[in-house]
């Protein structure tokens, strides 16, 4: 039995005797990677869509169902106590992972999308009134656009959008200028899923706070690749999905400053989120349970805890350095292929290589690469405004994780050559 004392221990495993990061040892942790697709070794480069799961995560979920399954926060019996302890231990792991001040600031949600919707439907509906403004950027995923559009429509408020340049970088001056007296919230991505751009988040948050504007951060594409310290960032809300950081699908985290979460009305209502109910009046439970109505995804929370433990074991610095090397290597190799145009060439980028090939539709690129065992994403990446900004209907996107190798980048380059041959 693991206990609430399960802390991020900082033990760094994947370093070989020579002190170098050993990607083969990492790959050995991921059962799914060792298979052939269409007769070729799988080259999984669709990590921005979802990452693969290490044995530690799969085992944690199995262990929970085989040994601890019960409802949480309810039973007095042995299994329920175990389940509750494991569930809350995972919350502590998340707290430590994000360096949040309190574990009550960690709310479990289904994913980034639900985290954003939660804030839009509670904080947003309470704070945003007719004539007010919500500020986003031009590189947001649809999930950080549509909830604000719906809110603004409902409240007759205005959605403002800070532009990006041809490299896919935010125009910071414009962002600052759009922070006005009516701005009630800035909702911004940490890392763009379609372009890979890393936003200068700390500066953006300082700018917003200097105008008394709270900031929500979509961290879906950042958490797998870099250390996130919510206290250092001083963000008001930060949300991410478990499945992009080697955890299960359908589970994610909303971090919110306790003072804000306290003041917010509840999101969904029902069991667990109350402290007392009569037909006349209901008193809501304390944080974070006020926002966790109903029986939660206990196994997934435990799986997420195991994923963050795993990431911590690898060391975020090691992960970031390895992926940075891969991205630089891939950027150079892919951009050297005739007819290729990179979409998203920001100075600060993480993991994502989005590209188009002259006269070849990304969908065809995806099919031909797939036939060589190479999995990439093709399409608009739930970022149609970004596609429009760059004048393309879609892109092909390779995105890297800690288990990818330079050899796989070479396979991608050969794959793209094959695409060009088919269309020659």
């Amino acid at each position, binding site marked *: 039995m693991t206990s609430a004392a399960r802390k991020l221990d900082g033990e760094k495993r994947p370093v070989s005797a020579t002190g170098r990061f050993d990607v083969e040892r990492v790959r050995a942790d991921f059962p799914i990677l060792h298979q052939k697709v269409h007769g070729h070794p799988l080259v999984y480069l669709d990590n921005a869509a979802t990452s693969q799961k290490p044995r530690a995560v799969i085992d944690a979920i199995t262990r929970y169902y085989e040994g601890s399954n019960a409802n949480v926060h309810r039973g007095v019996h042995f299994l329920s106590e175990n389940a509750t302890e494991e569930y809350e231990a995972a919350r502590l792991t998340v707290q430590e992972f994000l360096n949040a001040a309190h574990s009550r600031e960690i709310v479990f949600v289904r994913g980034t999308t639900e985290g954003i919707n939660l804030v839009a439907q509670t904080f947003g509906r309470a704070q945003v009134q007719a004539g007010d403004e919500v500020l986003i950027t031009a590189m947001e995923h649809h999930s950080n656009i549509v909830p604000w559009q719906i809110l603004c429509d409902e409240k007759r408020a205005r959605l403002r959008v800070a532009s990006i340049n041809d490299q896919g970088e935010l125009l910071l001056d414009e962002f600052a200028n759009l922070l006005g007296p009516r701005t009630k919230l800035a909702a911004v991505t940490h890392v763009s899923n379609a372009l890979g751009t890393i936003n200068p988040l700390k500066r953006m948050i300082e700018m917003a706070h200097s105008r008394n504007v709270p900031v929500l951060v979509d961290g879906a594409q950042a958490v797998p690749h870099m250390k996130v310290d919510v206290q250092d960032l001083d963000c008001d809300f930060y949300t991410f999905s478990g499945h992009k950081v080697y955890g299960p699908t359908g589970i994610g985290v909303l971090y919110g400053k306790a003072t804000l979460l306290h003041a917010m009305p509840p999101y969904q209502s029902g069991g667990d989120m109350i402290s007392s109910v009569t037909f006349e009046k209901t008193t809501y439970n304390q944080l974070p349970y006020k926002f966790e109505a109903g029986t939660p995804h206990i196994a997934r929370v435990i799986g997420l805890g195991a994923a963050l433990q795993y990431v911590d074991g690898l060391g975020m610095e090691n992960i970031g350095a390895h992926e940075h090397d891969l991205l630089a290597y891939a950027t150079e190799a892919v951009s050297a292929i005739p007819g290729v145009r990179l979409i998203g060439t920001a100075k600060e980028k993480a993991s994502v290589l989005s590209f188009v090939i002259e*006269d070849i*539709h990304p*969908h*065809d690129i995806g*099919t*031909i690469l797939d*036939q060589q065992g190479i999995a990439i994403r093709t399409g*608009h990446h739930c970022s*149609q405004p970004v596609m429009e900004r760059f004048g393309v*209907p879609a892109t092909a996107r390779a995105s890297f994780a800690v288990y990818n190798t330079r050899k796989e980048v070479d396979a991608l380059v050969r794959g793209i050559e094959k695409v060009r041959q088919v269309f020659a």
Partner: protein
Amino acid sequence: MSDLRDLYQDVILEHSKAPRNYRELPAANHKAEGFNPLCGDRFTVYVALEGDAIRDISFQGSGCAISKASASMMTQIVKGKTMAEAEKIFGRFHEMVTGHAPAGGSESELGKLTVFSGVSEFPVRVKCATLAWHTLHAALEGKQDPVSTE
């Protein structure tokens, strides 16, 4: 890699590079827009219908090689056909690309369209091959809303 050549046959590649009837049709009295939200493919099909006959047809838009070639070859084969004939070809085409063609069935109606038979091995590409056809169907039915493959 033989599967790949089954899908990307030379005729398909050639039509995708130089699509036929790729223009607006001033004489069109029917038109519809088709959209594949998954990959962003978007086509407009223009039809000049005279009585029951497709007197002229054209298309415009953007999409992958499969969807563009399919649209191009569709315009060629249905031009001069009646609505009912066009719908019948669509039915046969749909059966072929989804792998549901009746055993021993005649492919003569499909003519050159049999180059798309390889699509049945690539289920995610069926929508690409049928987008233009769904759009034509909507145009003939006089539907105002864009059709979607989802």
